[in-house]
């Protein structure tokens, strides 16, 4: 393993920001790159990357990185935000993951984005551990943008339960995933069920899924569980279930659970009087793909997203 500083920037009084990359395998070979938190609250993602570095060190030590293959893991970009409890860039609160492809001569976060992208472009495969702006629990999945360059068959090789293809909206065009794909890297975002706390089970699943992918692409030698046969889902086909009023949210189901049509999935309680003011029922037979976790809910919030049942 070789540690590299892939991007650095001075700060007035803090230690220099130094984005570290850990390279495994043949020097200069750009086969697969794994990128961790761009946002300061993605603690689970940081943990997963640290565990990947740990696993790859062992694999490299045992001669399990295949000839002429090179892997880079960048465990954290925005650790400045992480150390002070901020999701975005500390000074101006901008989201680095909405600044890609960035600009060398642009503003601070555009320069960080450009610097990171210049270090990770030209890799054949790009894997990002990311988070979604809706706070809640997801079924672990691999997500990719429908840019025309996406390859859902490759995403299946992670062996995660689901592969989600998202039609990009204008808001998505400045994300790393979108721009990485436009740079002709086969880019995947891996989502586990947590962000700002660690869930060991899904972290292990995420580490195993990346190692499985690297093994199936002939980059490493690795013996592990073969994983799931992934279902490919188009995001627009998920059924959204909205809150009909605001209040305290009591969920009856978790992400990954199977539900039947009309099953009670949650309740909204009047925050002052304690009465149940709304019951939330399943709109289809299916699997809970996303579940709202915040105990408070606003009218119109999406509280569940359901995958219409795939098999009879």
């Amino acid at each position: 393993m070789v540690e590299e500083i892939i991007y650095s920037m001075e700060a007035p009084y803090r230690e220099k920001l130094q984005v570290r990359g850990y390279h495994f395998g043949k020097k200069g070979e750009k086969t697969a790159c794994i990128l961790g938190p761009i946002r300061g609250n993605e603690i689970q993602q940081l943990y997963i990357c640290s565990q990947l570095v740990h696993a790859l060190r062992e694999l490299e030590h045992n001669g399990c990185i295949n000839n002429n293959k090179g892997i880079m893991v960048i465990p954290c970009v925005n650790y400045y935000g992480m150390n002070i409890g901020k999701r975005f860039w500390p000074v101006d609160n901008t989201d680095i993951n909405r600044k890609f492809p960035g600009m060398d001569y642009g503003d601070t976060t555009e320069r960080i984005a450009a610097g990171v992208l210049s270090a990770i472009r030209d890799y054949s495969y790009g894997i990002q551990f990311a988070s979604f702006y809706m706070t809640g629990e997801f079924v672990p999945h691999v997500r990719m943008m429908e840019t025309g360059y996406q390859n859902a068959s490759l995403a299946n090789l992670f062996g995660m339960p689901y592969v989600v293809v998202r039609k990009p909206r204008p808001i998505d065009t400045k994300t790393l995933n979108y721009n990485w794909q436009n740079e002709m890297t086969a880019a995947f975002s891996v989502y586990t069920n947590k962000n700002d706390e660690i869930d060991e089970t899904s972290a292990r699943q995420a580490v195993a899924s990346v190692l499985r992918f690297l093994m199936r692409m002939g980059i490493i030698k690795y013996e592990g569980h073969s994983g799931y046969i992934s279902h490919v889902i188009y995001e627009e086909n998920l059924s959204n279930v909205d809150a009909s009023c605001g209040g305290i949210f009591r969920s009856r189901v978790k992400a990954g659970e199977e539900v039947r049509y009309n099953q009670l999935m949650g309740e909204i309680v009047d925050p002052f009087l304690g009465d149940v003011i709304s019951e939330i029922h399943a709109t289809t037979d299916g699997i809970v793909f996303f579940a709202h976790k915040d105990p408070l809910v606003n009218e119109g919030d999406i509280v569940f997203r359901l995958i219409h049942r795939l098999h009879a």
Partner: protein
Amino acid sequence: MIETVVAYQLAVGETLKIQKKRLMPGAGNPNIGRISIVSGIHGDELEGQYVCYEIIRRIQEHPENLNGIVDVYPALNPLGVDSGGRMIPKLNMDMNRMFPGEATGTMMDKLAARIIEDIKGSDICVDVHASDTFVKEMPQVRISEEHGKDLVDFSRLLNADLIWINASAAAHEATLTNSLNAIGVPALLVEMGLGNRVTRSFGDQITEGIFNLMHEIGIWSGPVGEIRNAKLTRDYGIDFFRAQSTGIFLPDMENGQLVSAGDMIGKIISTLSGDVLEIIQAKRSGILFTLREYPLVYEGALIARVLAEERNGW
């Protein structure tokens, strides 16, 4: 008449409402024009609050001069404005990157879609922004290259100092004005002043411009003051100055000043070593229309912009 455009019940004892003030002429004429004035998409940009107030005040003072509908939406992000935050609270999303919204999306997606629906049908929309809390801007209209040709003539009416045709599609994508322009509602974005401040002179200047615009499109028949000739430019006419070092910026000039090539705009210093890290000098002569107010800078931070080259027509 104050109308609620869209309302969603929040979790605890409160309803989020987007409201507008509708001002209408006395006599009914089904074919009258309509202008929408919006502000407060970013909760820390308060310059538009004064503009909204002045427009309503002046119309109410002389309702006899009103010949069309004026809809004033002072706070499209009321939770942000009321809590002094730029973004949508809790979601921490930039509302001006969520348009045109989505009827089946999150609460804020639905809300954005409803706002677009409500403004649709206006003959024109003016979205009044302030700068952020970092740099101060002279009053300017920013229009995209994509829709610019149709908007330049309207922009000239707004009494701004500058009209900037910006080629970067990314700067306009998912904004309210871009989404309105895409559905055929001419929409102009005004940028001026500083975040968390009201600069009354700038507000008066743009208010006069909005009355001038209303006059030109037949909505206002009252008197309008003298309108300045805005300088039109594209990206290449603007010199950007960004910090190449990290430290504290000390300006040597005032925003709005004329500069000559070589003039010292300011310097970046280290307060630990006592060194001057960087001197920022004008590259070309022109008008300093953007100047940093927030002293702390990281590499890349915007320090200043100078309008160095004008363009006469499209």
